[in-house]
Structures are given as structure tokens and as C-alpha cells.
């Protein structure tokens, strides 16, 4: 078991049912409070890696330890207790379109509240108050009563961030959080993640496409290519040679 306050991934391998090798013996460590960028081409295993950490996808082999707890061996109930401390932000926001913005944010508290009462849409008052605070934090408190699909893409992703914050997370897994947004909105979302990382000391694992975002926000980066870890180090270390190794020989730098 690793020391507390650290995420440790050891020999993680994921083979999908069809035989696709998505992750191939990936090992790395993330100290508490770090902003780690995960880069690589589409299909290189970034999403699979992030989802293995909170076991939305069951790893085939390997071990993930977080805060001295073996995540891969956790029972369903233990897993729920682990997941509620890991916020997740998605590329396509994954909001429930027909639900109110506030309800979407409150979903972040489902791991904490009484399951029976939550089934009839009853949340404790302090949780509701907290949900409003999180919305205020992303500047959307006046949208609380609107339906989620009435919001623009950038606003939806801010709701996604508020939902993750609702969990009082110790770690946030952000799976291409800005890939569906334009550059201006992308920076605004990344700044929220940066603030959370700096002020709340939340560990952030964020998969990203654009290298300039990696340089601008990440403390450290890891790179995947066809499921293999091909780079681990500071963003500034990614020179042209490294770039070609990560993205392939034909790739050109765009940002």
C-alpha cells in the first residue's frame, strides 16, 4: 500500500471484451494536490485510465491504491464511499437534460445522503444550500431552476464542475473537460479546475488535447500511446522529439 495522500497506479491493464488492449501495464503516482494532465491521441486509453481509477470500468489487471486503500479490491459499498470523494467531469457534460440545474448539482451529494429519502427527491436543507453555493461558485446561481438543456455548452460544463464540487472531492477526474468547448470557454473551465486545485487542494487528473492548455495549467503530465505510458514528467519537458513519440511521426504541433 502506498503512503496516504497519494494515488498510485501499478501495472494497470485493461483488455475489453472484444480483445482490445486499452491499457497496457501503466504505472504512475500522483501526489496529493497535483494537477496532472493526461495526454495522448484519441483512443490512446485516456478515458479508460480515468474510469479505471473510480472503477466505472473494471480493470483487468493491476492495482490502484488511493489514500492507502486498494481501490481495485473494494466491495461495492466500499466503492461507493470511495467514489463519493472523487468528483468527475465529462467531455459531454453528462447532465440529465430534463432535470433542473439544481437537481443536477444535488446529484453530487447522492453518495452522502440517506438513500431512502433521496429516492423521493428529498435532500437535507444544508445540502440544498451547499448546492446553491457551488452554483454561485461557477457563477450560475440564477440558473438553478432552469432545465439543464436550456443552458449553453460552457454553462453546462460549469454545472458539471459544480456537481463534482458538491461531492467535497479530494480528487477530480476530468475526462476531456474542454474538448467540446471553444477556446475561450475552455480557458474559463480550466481556470475553475485550477482554482479548485489551488484553493481546495484537490488532486486533479485531467485528460487534454491541446498542449498549450497542458503547459498553462498542469504541474505534471503523463502521455499514453496505444495504452502504453510513453511519457511522464513536467509539461515543459515535452520537446519536439517527445511530441512525435506521443502523437506519432506524422503529427504537427498546432498549439
Amino acid at each position, binding site marked *: 500500500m502506498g503512503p496516504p495522500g497519494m494515488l498510485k497506479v501499478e501495472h494497470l491493464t485493461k483488455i475489453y471484451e472484444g480483445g482490445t488492449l486499452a491499457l497496457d501495464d501503466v504505472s504512475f503516482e500522483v501526489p496529493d494536490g497535483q494537477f496532472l494532465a493526461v495526454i495522448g491521441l484519441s483512443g490512446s486509453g485516456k478515458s479508460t485510465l480515468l474510469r479505471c481509477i473510480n472503477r466505472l470500468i473494471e480493470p483487468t489487471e493491476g492495482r490502484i491504491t488511493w489514500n492507502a486503500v486498494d481501490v481495485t479490491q473494494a466491495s461495492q459499498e466500499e466503492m461507493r464511499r470511495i467514489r463519493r470523494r472523487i468528483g468527475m467531469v465529462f467531455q459531454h457534460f453528462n447532465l440529465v437534460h430534463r432535470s433542473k440545474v439544481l437537481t443536477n448539482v444535488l446529484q453530487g451529494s447522492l453518495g452522502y445522503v440517506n438513500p431512502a429519502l433521496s429516492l423521493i427527491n428529498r435532500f437535507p436543507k*444544508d445540502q440544498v444550500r451547499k448546492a446553491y453555493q457551488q452554483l454561485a461558485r461557477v457563477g450560475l446561481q440564477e440558473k438553478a431552476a432552469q432545465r439543464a438543456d436550456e443552458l449553453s455548452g460552457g454553462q453546462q460544463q460549469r454545472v458539471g464542475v459544480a456537481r463534482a464540487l458538491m461531492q467535497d472531492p479530494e480528487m477530480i477526474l476530468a475526462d476531456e473537460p474542454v474538448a467540446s468547448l471553444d477556446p475561450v470557454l475552455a480557458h474559463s473551465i480550466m481556470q475553475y479546475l485550477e482554482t479548485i486545485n489551488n484553493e481546495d487542494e484537490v488532486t486533479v487528473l485531467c485528460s487534454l488535447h491541446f498542449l498549450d492548455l497542458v503547459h498553462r495549467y498542469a504541474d505534471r503530465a503523463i502521455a499514453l500511446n496505444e495504452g502504453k505510458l510513453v511519457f511522464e514528467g513536467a509539461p515543459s519537458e515535452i520537446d519536439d522529439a517527445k511530441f512525435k513519440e506521443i502523437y506519432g511521426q506524422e503529427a504537427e504541433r498546432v498549439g
Partner: protein
Amino acid sequence: MANGNDTSQQSRLDPTPLEPKRGFKRTIFFILAMVFGVIVYAYGFDVTRVNLDEIKSETRQTQLVRVLRALARPDLLTYERVSTPTNAAFAMPCPAGGFTADEVDDDARHITVEPACVEPGGKITVRGHNFSANARGTLVQVPPADDLELRLAEFQVDGNGDFEITVNSRERDSDQPQTIRAITRENIGSIFNPVEVVLTDDSGSVSTVSSPRISKSTTDTWDRIIETVFLAFLATTLGTVIAVPLSFMAARNLMRDISVPMTKLALQLLALPVGVGVGILAAGWARTISEQLTDSTFLVILGLVVIPFLMILAFRWALPPVEEEPPTPAERSLRAAVMTIASVGGIVVLFLLASLMVTVGDWLAPRLAAFEFIGSFVASLGDILNAIITLLTALATAGVLMNLAGKLGMWMKGHLPAGFIKVFRIPLAAVAGAVLAVLIGIGIGSLYQITDPMKIYWVPAAVGGTIGLALAIRAYQKEQVGIGLSIYYIARTIFNAIRSIEPLVMVIVFVVWVGIGPFAGSLALALHTVAALAKLYSEQVESILPGPIEAVKASGATRIQTIVYAVIPQIVPPYISFTLYRWDINVRMSTIIGFAGGGGIGFLLQQNIRLLNYRAASVNMLAIAIVVASMDYLSSRIRERIV
């Protein structure tokens, strides 16, 4: 170079050597297919007994025309009728010097007889003028001596108010002049101008009726069509309530990931019958407790106030709104004990509620006059509640015990050596399979009246045990058993089987159970609705976006929370839409379910057709057409709005 180019060109553009052969084959195939088609049709004609002679037959045609005419004049309104006689004199036999009828007023309604005198039984031609257009009537001959009306013929007045008819007179010779009388029968009043008519019946009592008035057929049809619509309504709502939870079991995307360790599954299977048994026992105790209270309404109401209050307190204490740390084992068991007691209290409350509803309903019914049915409804709800409490308790207890067994399984997995579990789960699976098979055996045994313990206990136990053993050995290396997909396939199969039986057939069974009438019809339709809707719903669940499910799951939500927060919001509009669509189908279905004894308008329609009362049947059909068409329109409009 040029040469080679040529050949390649030729082979590419000119594939003639192959073409005719293929065409020939195709032609042969086509001719064979035609011959086959003709044979199929000929056989079809034979077995469906297509008979053109019947269509051409004179009697069939007149019958058809008669029925069509009756159907074209639905018996919507009843008219009182008035008979108006118009007389003309004639002589039989001809007196010496002939006979001259009185002068007639050409402007008034009158008839003329030609010739004015005939030999007994001679032919006469009667002409009428200035009658009401299109009236019908009877032509009679009235001999002078007595007041007899001898019927000669029926006549129909034309559009100008005239008629002409030639008939044979009756042989009643007399030296006095005789009378030919044309009696027209006309409806009194019209839809736009109804008339009050005073009637005196045989006993001399006088009553006033309106003419025209709504006919008996119309009022009967109205009663039955209301019955029909509500039959469909009850069937749809009942079916929906049951189909919604079942539909999740038939949704692949929700069930696919559910897999449990073998040990846990076997323990849960063992817990199922135990849970049902304990549940039935607990319901029995609760019934005994509640029966101590039901003698006095005051005690019932007191119980209904105090017990829920205590229950809320207990649940508040046992289920804190926010859990920071996992509770200790001691805390857990104390909580479980409190919850158990509170749950028994809950069952008592349900029994008390049922009894209160029966009391209140019976008390209300006679006091509500026209709304008596509300009282009876409350009372029936109480009865239904009373009947299903035991079932609910059994299911709930089975669920709780299965949950506990699952926890035990997980605890064993965490605390006992893995090798031991691997070996231990094999006999466990065998026992679970045996128990399950014995339960099925008892069910089959009661259906086929088998009493031999060998056949209902030992053989199934052996078979089930072997299957369990085989499964366990086969899954020896596997940690998890994909129970979700098994449930999915079983649910799908059952739904498809039920769906393929028409409600018209199902109702036959329900008629045996609950008697002829709309209740049997509602139950048959409800059962079919459950299967049909569960399938439609589950397909909707399968097509929802997976993203929100992932997101809710990632926040640490339980499976049920995930369904409530990520699945249900996505499926509400299609569910409503399908439910309305189903109501539409059920209305259509309920109009004919009466043919098989299921109540509603079909019952009346069938009766009217059998009694050859086609004008009343026409009213029924009209009502069906109106209701079905308007339901169709309404449901499609509402669905458009929702989706």
C-alpha cells in the same frame, strides 16, 4: 498495346456471353414462382371457402340490403306515432245503375278508388293525394256491418305526397257501400321541434312523454360505452403501474452489468423462500395485532396517528440524512432491530388503514346519494389493500433477507480464506438449486394435481441440485455470475409469451375466475398491457443516453439512486407517450372484449346482432366508431405535445 487495350475494353463493356443464360434462369425461376403463387392462392381459396354463388344469390342479397338499411338507420331516437285514417267509399258488388263515390275536395288529403265498384275480390287501384311526403301506411278494407279492418297492403307515399297502389279486394259483398281506408302512421315532432305527448296506458294511468326522445338503445349504449372507456382506463393504469418497474428488468443496458459472486447469489436464492415465509408470518402477527384494535374506530384512528409518528421517529434515528463514517457493527444491529420493529408497525398501520377504509366507505356509501360509488370505491380499496398486504410483506421481507444474505456473502468473501469459499460455494450452489427446483416442483405439482412426494420434492431437488452443482463447477474459476442478463432474458421471454396471447383469449380465463363482466375484461387487458408496455418501455430505457448514468454512478450513488436520477428523467416523456398509445389500443380492444364475456359495449353489440336487432347494433357501432376515433385523435394530439 492497342490490341491489349481492345480486349480489356471488350470484356469490360460486353458481358454478353453470360447475359442470356442468367436471363433464362431468371425467367424459369419467375415462372415457377408464379405457378407457386397461383397454387398458394388456389389453396387459400379452397380453405377459406370463397364462394361466389353465395354472393350472387338473390336471398343473400336481399338480406344484405335489409341489414345494411337497418344499419344505416341507427335507432337513436324513439318517436311517438299518430295514425291518420283517410276514407273513400266503394261498393261490392256493383249495384244496379253503378256506384258513384262522393265528391272529393281536391285540395285536401283524399284517396280515390277505381273502379268505384267491383265484383267480390276484384282488383282495385287506390290513389292518394296530398299526403305527407314519404309517409308509410296501411291500406285496409272496412266492410259496413262490422268494425273490422281487413288489411290489404302497405303503401309508401312519394315525395310529392301521392301514392298509387293496385290490390285485390277482399270478398265481403254487401248492399251497403264499403270503405277503403288508408291509415298513415307518422312520427310526432322532429328533432328541432319535439312535442309533448300524453299517453294513456291500459290501466288508465296517464303519462307525458316527449317525442322524439332518446331511445332505449341509445341510453343502453351510453351506459356501456362509459363502462368501456373506464374498463380501458383501469386496465391501462393498472398495467402501467406494474409495467414500469418490470421494464427495468427487461432493459439490457441496465441489467448487463449486474453480476454477483456465486456465494452471494446462492445465499440470496436460499434467502428468498425463507424471506417469503417470514414475511407471511410477520403479516400474520401484524394482522393479529391490528385485529385487537379494529373493533373500535377510535382505536384505529389513534393507531393510525401514533404508529406512523413513532415510525418516523424510528426511521429518522436509524437512517441519518448524511452519513460521514460507516456505522459500527453494534450500531448497525441496533438500527436493524429498530427498523424491523418499525416495519412490523408499518404493516399494522396498513391493516388499520385497510380496515378504516372499509368502515369509512361503508359508512359513506348510503349517505352520498348519487355519489354512492365513491363510498364503495373507498371500501373496495380497503379490501384490496387488506388482500395484498400479506403479499407485499412477503416480497419486502424476501428483499430484506436477500439483501442481508448478500451482505453475509460479501462478509464471507472478505473474512474467510478464498480457497475455502471456492470449495464451500459448490455445495451451497447445489442446495440453492435444489431449493429453487423444489419450489417450482410444488407449483407444477399443484397445477397437475401430483401428490407423490417423490415427484414434487425429491426428483426436482435432485435435478436442481445437479444443475446448481454443474453451474458452480463450471463457474469455478469465475468470480462473478452475470445474473442481470439471465433476469433480462427471462423477463423478455415471459413478456413475449404473454404478449402473443390476445386479450380476447385471456378474458376467457378471467371470466372463469371473476365472472362475466367488465372486471374480467379489465384484468385481461391489464395483463396484456403489462407485457406490451414493459417491452415498449424497456426499449426506451435501452435507448437513453449512457452519460448521465455514468455521471450519477461516479458520484457514489446506489443502483436505485442511479435509476431514479439518471434513468427516470430521461424516460418520462416516452413513457407517457406509450401509455397514452396503449390507452388508445385498450379502448379499441375493450369495445370487442365483451364478445368473449369481458363486459363493455361489445357485450351489448353481440346481443343485438344475435337478436337480429340491427338498428340497435348500429347505435353500438356508431358509438364505438366515435369513441375510438376521438381517443385516437386525442392521444395522438397529446403525444405530439409531450414528445
